[in-house]
């Protein structure tokens, strides 16, 4: 029998029509929907006189546009309000569950899928959102699609898709203290580049990966798209099963037992061939911070901003020069000397409870630097509630940070949370593109712990020496 990868197994199990020449018709188990990329798809369904084939396999939430202050008040921006209202109406008309503003399950679509138990191993999941890769942490095949494809899934519960190639990113070894899943992801991006996984579904393997918690695995898979990967996947194991058991939509009783048995087979066969393989030594990874305008442009926080002339590839050299100009940075400056104006802790990459705990642990009993504005935005209402139960909100508030309602917020600034021109932000999000967090805004991507350290110091700071330095200063 052919030895197959995890990806092969999930793809094969969902291929409804496959004739080799044309793209496959791929069955979609779960379709997640948000307000930004769906209105034109629903309009298309209406105009063609079609209907939603499987509303029970479709779940909607509101995350991109929603304010994170006074979330229940009417949205002040009429265009945003109309988009949110359109989703509410579309869901009502087509019988789709909508966990929108005011619902206790509202949140970032990639946070609520897993926490509700809608994200299950071995399933296919799509969403009109590139960070759908997040759900691959459970051994699901999960990928982002455009609005025409959203309409296709609404109408047929399938997609016509060409089988991507497979790629193994194997990461072995212990992570040093202060090095997180975010740093692993940024380290992978440094190694393979912004298009290093294009056309591929990445499977993350190795001892480092299997030791990660589910939330850390989600952070790692989330950033696969920044390397151009179609999806990221991690084989389900006991950690996955323990996370899912008892979640609201996780299977129960004999269905649960049957599911767990099925998930045990969801791993790449020994010796299965990938189209491409990359190996990363976890012990060589450090806490990274981006200096440029692509997520691959990063250095260890203890390094200096690189000189564009140090890049041999002409397009990388030009891109670096342009990035430094946009970022207002000078080559050769130590990263730790870069002062910041704003800290954003949130986004589908890093807004889960473990992320908030990690930031709170560093901010506990300390004050954020006077010149710095700090936004802490939980990924969902459930994360918010959990954090408040643990007293994390009080830690953030006493430190001088703002504690907000759930949503995408300053990751992309579609709601009122965005940077002013020239403002420099230490951000736990996923994209440092020009203008991403607000026109003229300058983004440095890093882990939640590094963001918290930056908030206290008012500049980019090595989290590994941060605590020691403070203790030293106090004595």
């Amino acid at each position, binding site marked *: 029998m052919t030895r197959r990868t995890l990806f092969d197994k999930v793809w094969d199990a969902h291929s*409804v029509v496959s004739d080799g*020449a044309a*793209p496959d*018709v791929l*069955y979609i*188990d779960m379709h997640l929907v948000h307000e*930004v*990329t769906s*209105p*034109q798809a629903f*309009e298309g369904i209406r105009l*063609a006189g*079609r209907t939603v084939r499987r509303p*029970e*396999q*479709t779940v909607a939430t509101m995350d991109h*546009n929603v304010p994170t202050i006074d979330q229940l008040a009417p949205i002040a*921006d009429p265009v945003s309000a109309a988009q949110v209202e359109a989703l509410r109406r579309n869901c009502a008309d087509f019988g789709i*569950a909508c966990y929108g503003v005011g*619902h206790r399950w509202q949140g970032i679509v990639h946070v609520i899928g897993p926490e509700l*138990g*809608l994200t*299950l191993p071995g399933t296919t999941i799509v969403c009109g*959102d*590139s960070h759908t890769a997040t759900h691959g942490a459970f051994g699901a095949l999960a990928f*982002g*699609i*455009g*609005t*025409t494809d959203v309409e296709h899934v609404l*109408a*047929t*519960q*399938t997609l*016509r898709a*060409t089988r*991507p190639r497979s790629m193994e990113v194997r990461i072995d070894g212990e992570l040093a203290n202060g090095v997180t899943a975010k740093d692993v992801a940024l380290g992978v991006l440094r190694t393979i580049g*912004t*298009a290093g996984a*294009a*056309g591929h579904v990445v499977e993350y393997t190795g001892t480092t990966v299997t030791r990660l918690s589910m939330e850390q695995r989600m952070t790692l898979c989330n950033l696969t798209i920044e390397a*151009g990967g179609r999806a990221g996947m991690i084989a389900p194991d006991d950690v996955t099963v323990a996370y899912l058991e008892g979640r*609201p*939509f996780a299977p129960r009783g004999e*269905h*649960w037992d*049957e599911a767990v048995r*099925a998930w045990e087979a969801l791993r790449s066969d020994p010796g299965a061939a990938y189209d491409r393989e990359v190996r990363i030594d976890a012990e060589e990874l450090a806490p990274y911070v981006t200096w440029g305008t692509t997520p691959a442009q990063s250095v260890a926080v203890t390094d200096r901003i690189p000189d564009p002339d140090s890049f041999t590839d002409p*397009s990388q050299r*030009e*891109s670096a020069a*342009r990035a430094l100009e946009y970022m207002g940075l000078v080559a050769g400056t130590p990263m730790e000397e870069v002062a910041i104006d704003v800290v954003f802790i949130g986004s589908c990459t890093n807004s889960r409870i473990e992320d908030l705990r990690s930031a709170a642990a560093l901010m506990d009993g300390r004050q954020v630097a006077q010149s710095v504005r700090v936004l802490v935005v939980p990924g969902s209402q459930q994360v918010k509630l959990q954090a408040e139960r643990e007293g994390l909100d009080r830690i953030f508030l006493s430190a001088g940070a703002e504690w907000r309602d759930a949503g995408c917020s300053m990751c*992309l600034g*579609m709601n009122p949370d965005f940077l002013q*021109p020239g403002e420099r932000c230490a951000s736990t999000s996923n*994209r440092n593109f*020009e*203008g*991403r967090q607000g*026109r003229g805004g300058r983004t440095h991507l890093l882990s939640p712990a590094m963001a918290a350290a930056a908030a206290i110091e008012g500049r980019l700071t090595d989290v590994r020496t941060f605590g020691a330095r403070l203790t030293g200063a106090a004595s």
Partner: protein
Amino acid sequence: MKPFRCEHGTLVPLDRSDVDTDQIIPKQFLKRIERTGYGAFLFHEWRADASGVERADFVLNIDSYREGTVLVAGSNFGCGSSREHAVWALQDHGFRAVIAPSFADIFHGNALSCGLLPVTLAEHQVRALLDLALEEPGVECIVDLEDCTVSAGDLRFDFQLDPTKRRTLLEGLDDITLTLHNLDEISAFEATRPAWMPAVARAEETA
């Protein structure tokens, strides 16, 4: 979908790699619920400064390129966000084809779905087209999907496209219509799905 057979139009050089969809159409314009009207906002922050004054050095603001319909750009074009609005904005501005050494997967799929032809050529071929368009502003480019060639000046390159996608573009077919012919297979597949697969009963929304 409007069929794509052959496009004659001005070649517009955008000489940078990793052009992300946040640049093609910034987020503030994604709040609209329409599918049209995004052209005015294409490359918004590169085209004009914060006060709305056009940047004279941006390619789309130079008269010889303003009416261009074929864009040629660096590698990994369309990376980042899945927003199909990026394709709609390019089309609404008048572009019918984009030529690059590589495209981000989601953008590539979106472009094909909407009838914007993504043409992948080798790095040196794209370099030659960029140089030609920069040296001879307004030069015409012919992108022919019937014989899969790109021609401009003395340059002529062959390109490849998935045969099924090529057919749907040539005939202006849409995927949903094609897939609806597979409804029997889809229903048969659904009947075999395990009971543990995810589903949300409408009643559970208020659980």
